[in-house]
């Protein structure tokens, strides 16, 4: 297990994808958080706190603005750790290194579990980069516009710290998803389409009916936000969330279910 972990960690450290991922996430979240912070502040200044133009028709007070901005990484940026995790599996198939991998370690379950564990340190780096970018961009903009940043508020700090946890779990979901869909291009496209388009749309639609509203809390994006304990969706009055612990269990559940499906399908077949 130790040997397999060292091999898996080296697979990531010897390639550039993980720190490119962290750098791009940092930059993207920095800019996105700055833009969102500025537009929230401007909208309440021009129209008053009663209307923010959010789809749920909710209201944003200065604290809600801050927490919505600081959790943007969890609400919109989780694609980065998810892709990091998926690439751990799919790049082996893209470059056919899965053959020497399975020659060195034929126990396929061990290979998959090692990948799941070995991605953790890199997921932490990417997630911290994303959250730091979000807070820098968001708090910087709020401060420049003369709004309170709430960064000394313990609840806010907790939300920020927990969003790192949520993002790290997203990397595990990515590993599981990559094991199911090993085609790298297809895996990235499906992850992008689902997280950026399908799930947001589903959550808006499902929030309209009582029967589906409860179910929508168990969507992976909603579970991630539950871990952070706050999000744009909640502030906008669209949906309630699970508790943080429930959120952790739901995301872990997605990761493990995907991993088991991958083990029983792709990783049971002939490879190489």
């Amino acid at each position: 297990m130790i040997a397999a972990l060292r091999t898996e960690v080296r697979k990531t450290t010897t390639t550039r994808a993980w720190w490119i991922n962290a750098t791009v996430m940092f930059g993207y979240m920095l800019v996105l958080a700055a833009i969102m912070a500025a537009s929230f502040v401007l909208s309440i200044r021009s129209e008053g706190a009663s209307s923010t133009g959010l789809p749920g028709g909710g209201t944003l007070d200065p604290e809600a603005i801050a927490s919505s901005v600081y959790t943007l990484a969890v609400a919109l940026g989780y694609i980065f750790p998810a892709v990091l995790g998926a690439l751990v599996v799919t790049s082996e198939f893209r470059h056919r290194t899965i053959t020497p991998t399975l020659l060195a370690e034929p126990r396929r379950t061990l290979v998959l579990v090692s990948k799941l564990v070995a991605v953790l340190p890199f997921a932490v780096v990417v997630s911290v980069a994303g959250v730091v970018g979000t807070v820098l961009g968001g708090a910087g903009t709020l401060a420049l516009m003369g709004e309170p940043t709430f960064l000394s508020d313990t609840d806010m700090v907790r939300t920020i710290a927990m969003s790192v946890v949520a993002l790290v779990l997203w990397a595990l979901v990515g590993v599981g998803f990559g094991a199911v869909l090993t085609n790298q291009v297809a895996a990235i496209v499906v992850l992008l389409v689902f997280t950026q388009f399908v799930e947001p749309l589903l959550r808006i639609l499902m929030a309209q009916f009582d029967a589906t509203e409860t179910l929508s809390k168990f969507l992976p994006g909603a579970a991630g936000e539950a871990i952070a304990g706050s999000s744009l969706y909640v502030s906008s009055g669209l949906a309630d969330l699970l508790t943080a612990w429930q959120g952790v269990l739901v995301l872990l559940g997605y990761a493990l279910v995907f991993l088991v499906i991958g083990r029983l399908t792709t990783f049971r077949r002939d490879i190489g």
Partner: protein
Amino acid sequence: MTSTFDADAGVVAVSGLTKRFGAVTAVDDLSFTVTPGRVTGFLGPNGAGKTTTLRMILGLATPDAGTVTIGGVGYSERPRPAHHVGAALETASFHPGRSARDHLRVYAPEVGVPDSRCDEVLSLVGLMEAADRRVGGFSLGMRQRLALATTLLGDPQVLLLDEPANGLDPEGIRWLRQFLGYLAGQGRTVLVSSHVLSEVQQTVDDVVIIAKGRLIRESSLADLEKQARPAVRVVSPDAEGLERLVRESGWLAQFEAPGIAAISDQHASDVGAAAFAHGLELHELRAAGTNLEDLFLALTSEQTS
């Protein structure tokens, strides 16, 4: 040379191996044995089932029937298989962004060797100067050497190499020949696959020839060579002189027309020398027999037609 290896542990035994892909039987009741201390050529045309067989030997593909053991044990049943068996299946099995040394460092922990072994095998295959270059910029020949280096990481007793000569220049093929011969001389088992016999003709001691997934021939190369018969086609304007030469030399010959003879079991050099000694004018002198490659093609195409 005294061998440091236990001979039994180096025997690759394939028995009744069968693999179907839908309606196609890629490997059909295949049985053969690879012995240590010799270089064995695993030969057959493209699509004969060589790679599929190797994948089953290595536990990457599951056979529909039959068994494979290396030293009496299935590949996947060994705790650290790369320590005993070094295998290279595809030359493209590299991440293009990794350096040659990093490629080896990735697998070193699982193979169970210290990092210093990576530089040792790079030196062995002559890639030390390219150790820090990204594999993406490597030529096919360099990739072949790196693939070989990967198989050697665990200092394995058994080497299974799929088309290792593919993409090598003549100098590279000569190097590979000497290197594989050296490894076999240490008592290791060396199996190399190829779709051209001539590519490995000077390398191998034994041959296992397959076509359409079935065993065609399992023998030593020397036995196979005995089957290859030379012949010479001769054209002379002096029909009578040619007939006399054939008669006096005691050659077995067929006359296609006056002055045109196909002489069996003789080499062109001998026929040419005899004609020159007899002062016979020749307009054509050409080797027309079955060489080893022709024999190989004939053996493998019988199955295909």
